[in-house]
């Protein structure tokens, strides 16, 4: 917790330095924020190129917000996640409008680290989870990913999604129920032994 607070303060200090014309602050702040946003967008969209666009757009908005940034009102990382969530939501809606064959369009994870999993069945399981996540309603997927994969606390997720903490808990619970059902339907295929 103390480390989180320190990180938040460092992010805010770097953003202030950037706004004051420090040429190195942008690089330092980008190295702190971009990997997280890129990872989140990749997991939500399942498309690395689109995720890179999202990360670039989030950072551009952050640079533009820097001169009027008021430290203490929002945490930089929370703000960045919130923008990323909104941009991902827009992309997903646009995708859904275009998409005719939903399941076939869900990309396998392009993250090489997942593909490099030695055991093929583990790779299948992660692919199944990715696909099940992709089938969740947008808000549920975002809540589950932020909570269980990004590891954020519920109050921070509530700030990002701009809902109450109870609503976050509800979204996560419903999302996990849907994921459980989706994986249970492929239980044998994924190599899980029957209980």
């Amino acid at each position, binding site marked *: 917790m103390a480390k989180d607070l320190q990180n938040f303060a460092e992010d805010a200090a770097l953003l202030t330095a*950037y*706004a*004051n*014309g420090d*040429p190195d602050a*942008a*690089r330092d702040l*980008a*190295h702190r924020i*971009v*990997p*997280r946003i*890129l*990872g989140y967008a*990749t*997991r939500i969209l399942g498309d690395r190129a689109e995720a*890179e666009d999202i*990360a*670039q757009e989030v*950072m*551009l908005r952050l*640079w*533009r917000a*820097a*001169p009027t940034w008021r430290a203490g009102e929002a945490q930089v990382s929370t703000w960045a996640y919130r923008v990323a969530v909104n941009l991902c939501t827009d992309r997903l809606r646009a995708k859904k409008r275009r998409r005719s064959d939903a399941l076939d369009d869900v990309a396998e994870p392009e*993250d090489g*680290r*997942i593909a490099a999993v030695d055991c093929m069945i*583990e790779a299948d*399981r*992660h692919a199944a*989870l990715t696909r099940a996540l992709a089938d969740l309603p947008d808000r549920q997927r975002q809540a*589950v990913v932020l909570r*269980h*994969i*990004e*590891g954020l606390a519920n109050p921070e997720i509530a700030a990002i999604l701009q809902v109450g903490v109870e609503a976050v808990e509800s979204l996560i619970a419903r999302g*996990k129920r849907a*994921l*459980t059902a989706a*994986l*249970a339907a492929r239980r044998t295929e994924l190599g*899980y032994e029957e209980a």
Partner: protein
Amino acid sequence: MNNLDDLLAQQAAIAAQPMPVPDALMARILADAARVQPRPQPFAVRAPAPAKLTFWQAMSDMFGGAGVLAGLATVACAGIYLGAVQPAALTSVTLALAGSSAVDQLDFMPSIDSLLAEE
């Protein structure tokens, strides 16, 4: 479901490792940052306050320059001199031009009595 929790935990462990950011993406982001970064404002140099004008400088400016002011002063002095001294030569010229009638006999502002008398 433990299987789900296990899978999510494994994904979280993967996510905890920093995702490599392609150099090209970072270059684009930093180019954006440089493009929109506010430029430090140099200290504003305040223009020196205009020197306070003296009375004669102010008068000179008002009348269009020292030469014009000197001319006006000369003419004013000449007028006062002529009015006070009334040199004989100038008086004879005035009488010759105005004839015998004295200037003070001219009625530049006639009263309205004559107009009222017509009724």
